[in-house]
């Protein structure tokens, strides 16, 4: 291919591409020279780019290039990063699953510590917990319940598949020694505030 350095189309194309803002025909002409038929070059460029990933767009009396509108979704990329649930979140999820529908105050009473808003948010973001209406008691507190996704994720046909207290005891999961060990293993970091910080820090990296 032979390149014509004086090709008006090439000149206008380069000027528009490098411009910091949309340009009027006069502004383009100031770059490419008076003798060039800028309007005709623009028509030609619009034609050349039709259907490509880039298009020439006119806004009022100004022209600029932009990515094709139907490809905007490519410019935004969702990246999934595996994250482990915090202990506060997994306990809150467990309480919700065993006691649903359950209010936040009830979850806190069972856990013995307050839970942050972030903890429930994380579980709702994960799609495992949903708001389940208000309890008709003074204050009409919101209740929470698990979702069908919760059952799917944890491989449960229904909530009745969750092991009961007797099963847990038989499995040694109610052994106070386990509890002591669990507390030991998270020593220094069991305070709710610490856990929350981690949860809320969505954009850590």
């Amino acid at each position, binding site marked *: 291919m032979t390149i014509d350095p004086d090709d008006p189309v090439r000149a206008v194309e380069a000027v528009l591409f490098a411009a910091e803002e949309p340009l009027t025909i006069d502004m383009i002409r100031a770059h490419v020279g008076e003798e060039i038929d800028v309007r005709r070059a623009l028509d030609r460029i619009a034609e050349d780019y039709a259907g490509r990933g880039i298009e020439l767009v006119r806004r009022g009396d100004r022209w600029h290039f*932009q990515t094709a509108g139907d490809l905007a979704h490519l410019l935004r990329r969702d*990246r999934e990063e595996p994250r482990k649930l915090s202990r506060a979140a997994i306990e809150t999820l467990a309480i919700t699953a065993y006691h649903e529908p359950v209010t936040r105050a009830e979850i806190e009473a069972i856990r*013995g510590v307050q839970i942050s808003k972030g903890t429930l948010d994380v579980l709702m973001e994960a799609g495992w917990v949903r708001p389940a209406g208000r309890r008709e008691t003074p204050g009409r507190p919101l209740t929470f319940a698990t979702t069908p996704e919760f059952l799917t994720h944890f491989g449960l046909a229904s909530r009745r598949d969750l092991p009961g207290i007797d099963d847990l005891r038989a499995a040694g999961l109610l052994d106070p020694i386990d509890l002591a060990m669990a507390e030991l293993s998270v020593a220094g970091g069991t305070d709710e505030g610490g856990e929350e910080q981690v949860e809320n820090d969505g954009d850590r990296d």
Partner: protein
Amino acid sequence: MDAADDTLTLDIEGWEGPLDLLLALARSQKVDLKQISILQLVEQYLSYIEHARTLKLEVAADYLVMAAWLAYLKSALLLPRDPEIEPSPEELALRLQMRLERLNAMRDAGARLLARDRIGRDVFRRAAPEGLRTVRKAQWQAEIYDLIAAYGQINARNRPVFHVVHDRLVMTLDAALERVSRLLGERIEWATIESFLPDSLDGAFRKSALASSFVAALELARMGKAELRQKSAFAPLYLKATGQGMEA
């Protein structure tokens, strides 16, 4: 070398050190650097320095050190060769020529680099790109085991705890009061408190019975139904019913 020397260097010609000066002189020979005459170059350098000195200009120390080295090289090249000396003067001359070539090559390369089509000067990238965005989404992970283990732990934490004291045989104060009171009524003489205790008993119960019987004895004395006698601390404690008590 200090700052004053640098200033002076600039004052002479603006050479960037002896090698820079040597390269400029070598290029003035107007031949390929591979063909330069090292002897001629040495002469040029020495006369340049000498010229500066006759003008009573101070010459920076590194130029003088180079001059001394070149003077040595010159004499070594001219004198009959001593095979004992390594490296040979020819080798040294070749290395010097190589160094000049290297510097020259890099100087050219720098100029050629800067003359390329450079971004922002000759070629342009898009000035106002839409930009690409990466939205990070957490994919929360938890296993069923984590879930039930957590629930187990909550339960273990909250399970009510009972403090159960093992059954132990004790003599209550009421029982002791009844027993001591009855036995006192059957006796006339002073008797030790131990003689009021039940027979054949284990240690724990005996201690309990002794303590309760002692309190019972004090209670009976307070009510005027018994008299107590003890010669000294830790001496045997004796009890006897009062006449009044007997009569009552």
